[in-house]
């Protein structure tokens, strides 16, 4: 059995799954002042202690960190940046909180300027004096060569509470995003550590020794203890949980789109033959562009509770939400009222919903019935337009080879999956507009918790081998190893695979979930003068987001 818990803004959901089927589910109100309490109440609602002991694993997706970012409850961070030449320091993110120091690498990971140790020592002293215990260190091209970050870390770690290093959080290139990522990681570190400790402490107290995981933004899980080093990876676990929740229904033979219609927003995600698409660069978190590997979602400001108004005799839906629907005692007409008034939905106070439509109809000069239908039609149009826009945007993404440009893969969704409160009443109409059949999963109200429960552990590694310099760097591990001159693409992939499996196991992956995928593979000559002097090989390997095989076997007994 698997236990999934999703801490949302209003509700905390929990599900107990066996063989991907819900055994028990519950919804409790989220107390934003006491997230741990909400988690525990949701847990108790589906399982007593005895049953919990038989659970194979617990996976949590939470908005603790998302809220902390939104409400700016961030620890003060000493941000140490080795910029070198290029974009001006003033144009970097978080410029106001940054100390620029000497040292940088070039694009091949070769030292271009050494760090200045006395400068770093003086800075470490200044941080200590100012009571700055959290330090983030980011170097240009540190994902090609982490040496400078590691050197600096040695100096700061003695005097700081915790130090985040850019290269450990992502192996991708993008210095400004690396700065924002390391900063957020460090700014959230204490909060996350405290939460994780309390949770583990509580479970231990009641005698439960079940592996505890947390969901990452890329829809993969990580063991809670391992997540302590990388809280930033877990910030956007909510949207990821929603996408993972629909995954069991996503066909693997065609492309597909999912929409999650919430109260304020609708989130759209795409699946290529069953695999959710990832953000090409990294997720945006509270206005920070980061390198956090995240599932690709587009959020639009239209939900069941969006305010509907008439402006110049035209209906305007959203973007604000003033409260719940009038049918549920809210202050203004909403799409939910339209669904109820037009007979599509059968809940809430029908008289109040009808009143909402009558108010709009008067300003619109049409009947309440026509108005209700028009509101629903417009909301569906709007969502369908966004889906089309997102697909077009994904397909317009630049590619860098002739082969891809001429014969590149195009995403063409053939199926719509809709979750969220209004989903059952709107899915078909949106599907008609998009020309594809629509499906609303059963238990879609707890899809997020299911998604969390069923997600497998994911890991990504970026490797660059330079056979001229006879060095291979594995960015995320901060590893630089010697390689022979004859090292080939296959050798790099093998090295990546071996390390990927190791860290996936350390992060808590199950053996049967360990499917390694090579997502990028490029190999170029390094030419000196007229002659070939080596190869520059770039490989990215991952365990892609998907469903775990855990909890599907006949036995409920953990090995």
């Amino acid at each position, binding site marked *: 059995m698997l236990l999934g818990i999703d801490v949302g803004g209003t509700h905390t959901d929990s599900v107990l799954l066996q063989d991907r089927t819900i055994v028990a589910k519950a919804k409790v109100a989220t107390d934003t002042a006491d997230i741990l309490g909400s988690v525990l109440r949701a847990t108790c609602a589906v399982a007593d202690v005895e049953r919990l002991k038989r659970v194979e694993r617990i996976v949590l997706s939470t908005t603790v960190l998302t809220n902390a970012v939104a409400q700016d409850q961030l620890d003060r961070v000493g941000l140490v940046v080795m910029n070198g030449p*290029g974009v001006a320091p003033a144009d970097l993110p978080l410029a106001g909180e940054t100390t620029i120091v000497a040292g940088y690498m070039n694009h091949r990971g070769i030292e271009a300027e050494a760090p200045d140790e006395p400068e770093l020592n003086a800075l470490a002293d200044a941080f200590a004096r100012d009571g700055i215990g959290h330090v983030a260190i980011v170097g240009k091209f540190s994902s090609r060569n982490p040496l400078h970050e590691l050197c600096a870390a040695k100096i700061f770690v003695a005097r700081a509470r915790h130090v985040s290093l850019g290269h450990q959080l992502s192996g991708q*290139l993008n210095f400004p995003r690396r700065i924002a990522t390391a900063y957020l990681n460090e700014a959230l570190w204490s909060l996350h550590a405290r939460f994780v400790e309390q949770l583990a402490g509580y479970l231990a107290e009641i005698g439960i020794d079940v592996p505890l995981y947390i969901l990452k933004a890329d829809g993969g899980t990580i063991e809670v203890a391992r997540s302590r080093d990388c809280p930033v990876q877990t910030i956007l676990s909510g949207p990821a949980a929603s996408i993972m929740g629909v995954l069991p229904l996503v066909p693997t033979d065609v492309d597909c789109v999912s929409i999650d219609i919430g109260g304020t927003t609708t989130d759209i995600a795409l699946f290529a033959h069953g695999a959710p698409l990832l953000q090409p660069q990294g997720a945006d978190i509270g206005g920070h562009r980061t390198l956090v590997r995240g599932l690709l979602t587009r959020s639009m400001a239209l939900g069941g509770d969006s305010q509907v108004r008439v402006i110049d005799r035209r209906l305007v839906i959203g973007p604000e939400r003033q409260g719940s629907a009038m049918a549920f005692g809210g202050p203004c007409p909403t799409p939910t009222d339209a669904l109820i008034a037009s007979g599509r939905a059968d809940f809430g106070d029908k008289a109040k919903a009808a009143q909402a439509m009558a108010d709009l109809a008067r300003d619109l000069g049409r009947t309440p019935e026509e108005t209700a239908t028009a509101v629903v039609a417009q909301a569906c149009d709007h969502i369908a337009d966004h889906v089309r826009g997102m697909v077009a945007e994904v397909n317009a993404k*630049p590619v860098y080879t002739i082969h891809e440009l001429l014969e590149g893969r195009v995403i063409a969704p053939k199926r719509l999956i809709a979750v969220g409160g209004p989903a059952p009443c709107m899915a078909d109409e949106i599907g008609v507009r998009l020309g594809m059949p629509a499906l609303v999963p059963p238990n879609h109200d707890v899809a997020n918790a299911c998604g969390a429960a069923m997600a497998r552990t994911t890991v990504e590694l970026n490797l660059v081998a330079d056979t001229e310099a006879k060095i291979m760097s594995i960015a995320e591990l901060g590893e630089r190893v010697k390689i022979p001159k004859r090292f080939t693409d296959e050798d790099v992939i093998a090295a990546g695979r071996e390390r990927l499996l190791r860290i996936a196991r350390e992060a808590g992956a199950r053996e049967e979930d360990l499917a390694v995928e090579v997502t990028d593979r490029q190999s170029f*000559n390094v030419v000196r003068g007229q002659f070939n002097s080596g190869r520059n090989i770039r490989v990215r390997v991952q365990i892609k987001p998907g469903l775990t095989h855990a909890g599907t076997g006949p036995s409920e007994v953990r090995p």
Partner: protein
Amino acid sequence: MTRKTGLVFFPAYDYAISPTHPEREERLLYTQDQVLEEGLFDFDNIREFKPGIATPEDICRVHFCVPDLDTVAHASHLIAAGGCLTAADKVMSGEVDNAFALVRPPGHHSFRVVHGSRGFCTLNIEAVMVEYIRHKYGVRRIAIVDTDCHHGDGSQDIFWHDPDVLFISLHQDGRTLYPGSGFVDELGGPNAFGATINLPLPPGTGEQGFLYVLDDIVMPIVEAWKPDLVVNSAGQDNHYSDPITQMAFTAHGYAELNRRLAPDICVLEGGYSIQTALPYVNTGIILAMAGLDIAHVREPDYDAFDHRQPGEITDYLRRLKEAVFEQWHARSTLKRRFYPDGEFHTRSKDIFYDTDGLREHQRETVRICPDCGGTIVTDSRCDDTGNRILGITIPFHACDACRHHGEHQYEAAPSGRNLHVILQDKDRDRYLVRT
């Protein structure tokens, strides 16, 4: 002030002339690394676009491909040209303020007639773009400033007779570098005299020299000519680390040049120092186009002390300026001397295709015309391939007389088994082949 900048980045990682040729797969690899690491695509005012693919019509508006387009060009050439067209569309539609087509392979050594590849170029990508802009958007006057280290002889050839295209090439002196042309006295054909300007620079010219030439020669001419659109043929092989040239230009200098020139569209041309120049030069150009701070653009090994300008270069450039303006101010007199009155002017060209090892013999006759660019008749043969064409080009905004002359030439030309007669009618956008 920041500007909205479009970037069409297409490194063509699966195309090379040969594995160790300078024009090979990884030419823009380290540029991509640098641009990604600097986070340039994340600036709100910088947008990346996927290149389109140029159509045969787009190519035929400029070139006579012999024996045909498919034989001489590869998909990579159509995408490189298509990338320029995408850049142009984004600028012309107002979606961005300016755009940079960071594409390969390059094109400025390709002449009007194409029997094969020369100087790593097959299709003249910015000429294709310029003609596309004039055709699609009706822009009248376009200035091309070619800052590649090599003389842009192909672009010069294509626009030699065009009074509406100002072509200015800054390059390492042709006595010291391929293609060995681009001297001060090359000023354009009889219908476009003075619309071609060549500025041969001595080997070793660096940032100070380039910016002097820009400020003191290029800008005054461009401003006097009043173009509707400015294109920078942004070759990057003037860099001090380039392996096949002898100049001393810098990444910061390229950025500053683009800041001051403020081109509407930049097109990458040459530049083969793929590790030590291109990553920094391209970062600089992009920042400059986007109106961002370029003060920190610098190569890791740059040392200002090593880059002081020798006195003899300063003197040479001052003399160059005097020579150029002496001609520029006397251009009407000079024109009469270069092109005495007559109905037609003919020049013969012997063109070597170094990349493919072909030699072309060409006779080009232009109708001398006070009212338009003049119809051009090009008789071209390549003995190595046995191909021969007679190409008739009717220019944009052709006068009745030139149109009549061109159509008559096309109809009256003798047919032969090995002779293709082609009418390239830019004004009516048609391309007719008579075999």
